[in-house]
């Protein structure tokens, strides 16, 4: 077993510097690496390029990094829930690259899987395809999209072991598995870190080979964006 466990959050984020490109898992506030984000705020690193499907809300998730103006460029598919984000974008302080959600996922997966680029039909004929190579296959048009290059990938899983094997829960899985192994260093935080041998190899979602550092996360808030319920009859 190659041990990936680190004991402190400082150790987990060692090497993160201003100007780097970071991938962060999560969909909305679901399955975001809460501990890593908190530590990034503490570290005070700036000029970051962040690849994440969403940009958090004003006072949680990536919104915390936006508040401190630590993000130079945001690469996302949907950024609708964040007033500070909108303000920085419209004033030109923040550079924003909007990417179709499936393309964003695949650009991560391509980096993980060693593909430099791929063709997708998404965005053909729209401003997303401007300046990009297009090609026809079987009568349909496709856009060439390239894999992301990132320095660090921060993901959140439900359970993990010291070998870096990960299991996700519910829709908190989302972009997290796609970002594992898609950056130079993948840092996984988990709700429950167990010794090797405790997880059933049949149930592993992401093998530890894609993870360089794993740590036991703490104090998960797991904020719900749209609490929606039905009445009991």
């Amino acid at each position, binding site marked *: 077993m190659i041990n990936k466990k680190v004991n402190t959050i400082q150790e987990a984020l060692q090497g993160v510097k201003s100007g780097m490109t970071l991938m962060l898992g999560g*969909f*909305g*506030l*679901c*399955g975001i690496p809460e501990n890593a984000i908190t530590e990034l705020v503490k570290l005070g690193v700036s000029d970051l390029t962040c690849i994440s*499907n969403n940009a958090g809300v004003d006072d949680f998730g990536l919104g915390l990094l936006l508040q401190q103006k630590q993000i130079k460029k945001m690469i*996302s*598919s*949907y*950024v*609708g*829930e964040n007033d500070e984000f*909108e303000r920085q*974008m419209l004033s030109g302080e923040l550079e*924003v690259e*909007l990417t*179709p*959600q*499936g*393309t*964003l*996922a*695949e650009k*991560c*997966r391509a980096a993980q899987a060693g593909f430099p680029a791929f063709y*997708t*039909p*998404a*965005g*053909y*004929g*729209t*401003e*997303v395809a401007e300046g990009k190579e297009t090609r026809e296959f079987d009568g349909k048009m496709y856009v060439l999209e390239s894999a992301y290059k990132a320095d660090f990938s921060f993901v959140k899983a*439900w359970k993990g072991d010291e070998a870096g094997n990960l299991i*996700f*829960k*519910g*829709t*908190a*899985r*989302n*972009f*997290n*598995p*796609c970002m594992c192994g898609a950056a130079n260093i993948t840092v996984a935080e988990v709700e429950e870190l167990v010794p090797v041998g405790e997880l059933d190899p049949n149930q592993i*979602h992401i093998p530890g080979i894609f993870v360089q550092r794993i740590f036991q996360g703490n104090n998960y808030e*797991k*904020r*719900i*964006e*749209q*609490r*929606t*319920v*039905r*009445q*009991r009859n």
Partner: protein
Amino acid sequence: MLDKNGIAKRIAKEVQNGYYVNLGIGIPTLVANFVRDDIEVEFQSENGVLGMGPFPFEGEEDADIINAGKQTITTLPGASFFDSATSFSMIRGQHVHLTILGAMEVAENGDIANWKIPGKMVKGMGGAMDLVASAENIIVAMMHTNKHGDSKILKKCTLPLTGVGCVKKVVTNLAVLEVKNNAFHLIERAPGVSVEEIQKATEGTLVVEGNIPEMIL
């Protein structure tokens, strides 16, 4: 004239036995409430769940189980969770049979715009560009006109496009329209709405052939 629930109710009639269906945010989400219960249908949400159920009872919400609108949901027996790349493999690979989504504008050539108003609103496209570029069967759920009374059923979209030549059918508060041969073909009228009213609210080319029946809801 239909309200949002009426539009959803009419679209629900398009959902067939054995369909995997992706529902967008807004009116499309309501469609799930009106699908006949004697057919087998599974709802996909692109954030990573197939077999979505109703909203949870109060106190049973799980922050780790949400839909693409970030609402808390439940799952039905047979449901599955998956990552975002797998989710869009289902969509891009045309394993999802029907996509229902909202729009700001639809054009007579099937173009759709729903993600950006330059200088005013930039929320992003989310999964909409992947969905419209891939789905065989796309139904747009929308109001026929905007709040100023201007038509959203156009000759040509004025807003940045989400997809080109992809919309097959539009269900609005006034009508059901089929999009083909560079025109909107009037298929059904909403209850109490005349062909003239629909014509007046439609900027794009409207083809009216024969007697147009009223929707049966």
